[in-house]
């Protein structure tokens, strides 16, 4: 059979999960990571990252809104997906997605953003006319109480929400890792490290994404980059990446040392079909190089311009590396036969339901949503964070 090497079970020829399922953990990872970066400022009072606080929240929301779309497109019967809410099979890891997703979207993200922006929304409602007034009025839920005590209450609830939000973000992405890690039939996926590896790679990708978005927004708005802010973000990116890399290497070393029945098949796969995406893109270019860049920046004080270039380079390589990691998990986990005697290959289509084109559209869509969100709720300007600074007095 074309694309097949060795022996695979006859039903294994077709890959079940396509590039869209690669996007799913990638996108939810960006959500979780962006939220955790935002909570650094809110809960742990890391003042330096304040310029990115609201941008990170809006980015998390934009990506979260898109997160279920690749899953919907992938389903054979998307019209039945509501059954996951109505008649969930409680033993299924996948059945819980809807609930974890809704909890995170509605309770954590939307509420936190609303509370943080409430004063801005009310002020815009008062200042605008016509349709704009109607939009902002609806967003304020027609409540214009921005008295000092009301804002203080907003701040208190918002803070509590962020405290709940951090474990929720961990839950969201740790859970995505569990979907893969709990499949005992697949040795490439089946490891208890999977949720924690997913979580740290999510934090890494989210921080890298916000770092890059911050550079882009500064360039677009023609404002100078706040260097202490990007230095701090880069520092956190470095630390999170170190943990992530250590975990992934732990997994690799453990597999190498144990060399169980699946090892030969997986080893062969990594050295052939996954060599470019795993060794070159994920480990070398996507991890070792950005880690080296970020490490050197911690040691040597380069000029601002040099640091900016290095951060953009490290951030871009990191995102590519994390995407490659998702690819290697999802696609890599389906390239070998469960008989461990052969391999199949993945042929990505272009303009089909699960092809490259919808994948590209789905990756552009969050940025379009973010652009709309930024127009509606500008994350910068003298108003930014004023509700809380006002409340804190």
């Amino acid at each position: 059979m074309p694309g097949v090497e060795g022996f695979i079970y006859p039903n294994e020829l077709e890959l079940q999960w396509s590039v869209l399922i690669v996007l799913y953990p990638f996108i939810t990872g960006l959500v979780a990571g962006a939220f955790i970066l935002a909570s650094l400022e809110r809960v742990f009072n890391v003042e330096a990252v304040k310029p990115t606080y609201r941008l990170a929240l809006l980015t998390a929301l934009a990506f979260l809104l898109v997160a279920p779309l690749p899953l919907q497109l992938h389903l054979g019967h998307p019209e039945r997906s509501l059954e996951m809410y109505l008649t969930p099979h409680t033993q299924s890891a996948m059945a819980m997605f809807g609930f974890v997703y809704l909890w995170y979207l509605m309770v954590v993200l939307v509420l936190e953003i609303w509370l943080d922006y409430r004063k801005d929304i009310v002020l815009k409602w008062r200042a605008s006319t016509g349709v704009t007034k109607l939009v902002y009025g609806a967003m304020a839920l027609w409540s214009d109480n921005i008295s000092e005590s009301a804002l203080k209450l907003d701040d208190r609830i918002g803070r509590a929400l962020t405290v709940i939000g951090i474990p929720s973000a961990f839950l969201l992405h740790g859970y995505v890792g569990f979907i893969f890690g709990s499949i005992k039939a697949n040795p490439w996926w089946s490891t208890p490290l999977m949720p924690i590896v997913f979580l740290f790679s999510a934090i890494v990708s989210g921080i890298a994404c916000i770092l890059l978005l911050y550079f882009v927004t500064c360039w677009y708005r023609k404002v100078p980059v706040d260097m202490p802010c990007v230095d701090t973000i880069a520092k956190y990116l470095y630390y999170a990446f170190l943990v992530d890399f250590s975990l992934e290497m732990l997994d690799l070393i453990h597999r190498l040392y144990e060399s169980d029945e699946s090892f030969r098949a997986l080893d062969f796969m990594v050295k052939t079909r996954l060599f470019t995406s795993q060794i070159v893109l994920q480990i070398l270019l996507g991890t070792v190089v950005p880690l080296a860049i970020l490490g050197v920046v911690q040691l040597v004080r380069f000029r601002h311009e040099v640091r900016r270039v290095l951060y953009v380079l490290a951030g871009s390589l990191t995102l590519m590396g994390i995407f490659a990691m998702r690819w290697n998990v999802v696609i890599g986990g389906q390239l070998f036969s469960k008989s461990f005697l052969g391999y199949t290959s993945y042929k990505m289509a272009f303009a089909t339901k699960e092809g490259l084109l919808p994948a590209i559209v789905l990756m552009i869509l969050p940025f379009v949503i973010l652009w709309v969100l930024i127009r509606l709720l500008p994350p910068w300007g003298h108003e930014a964070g004023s509700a809380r600074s006002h409340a804190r007095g």
Partner: protein
Amino acid sequence: MNQDRRSFLGQTGKLLILTASAAVAWEHILAGRPEDAPNYTATDHWWGMAIDIEKCIGCGTCVRACKAENDVPHEDYMFRTWVERYVVDPADLDHPQVDSRNGGYDGFHEREVLDTRLKMFFVPKLCNHCAHSPCVQVCPVGATFESPDGVVLVDKTYCLGCRYCVQACPYGCRFIDPRTETVDKCSLCYHRITKGLTTACCETCPTGARTLADLKDPKDPIHAFLRDHKVQVLKPQMATGSKMYYNGLDGSVR
């Protein structure tokens, strides 16, 4: 032919009665739902299968019968049951040579094994109807379920087509039917066994290599089969509670 009125009427009567019975039986077989088998009590049965590797000749009749009986797509990568041929060096169980061209649908071309050390045998495969099915565990809506008589079934009107169960099956027994965009797999010919018939693959096997077994029936030959043979299930380390019992299963079989 000499035929009086009496024998003509008699024969015609028999023909009419038999045709009517056949029509009723056929209707029941086509219906394929337990409620159409009023005399069948699911909790009285616990289905499995005995597979005797030493009897399998790799003719592929079971594969053809299954495809015909269950309207399985004719693509060469969609099977409810298939047959694998193993050629094994007994000193190197880790590297068996396996092939299953078109799932064994067309039988196997003769293969000359000159090296006398090598052994060759056929392994029929199908859904293991596990008592602790990993596929049932992961289905987000419960469209895949274990029936009270131990058969893993799919409700095609409920399946989302998320393919998580395909990933979770350690034996490669599931595929997506492109016509319905839902998952498909061996149903152990549920529409037949609930009518007192055996499965299509067991029915047509010329050597009796596969035998449907009701583990709750004390008179079922399965008990003697399990007692008298060294019996193994596929991938026992997966602890799925497989109910496909193989006699003569070689250690090289995956």
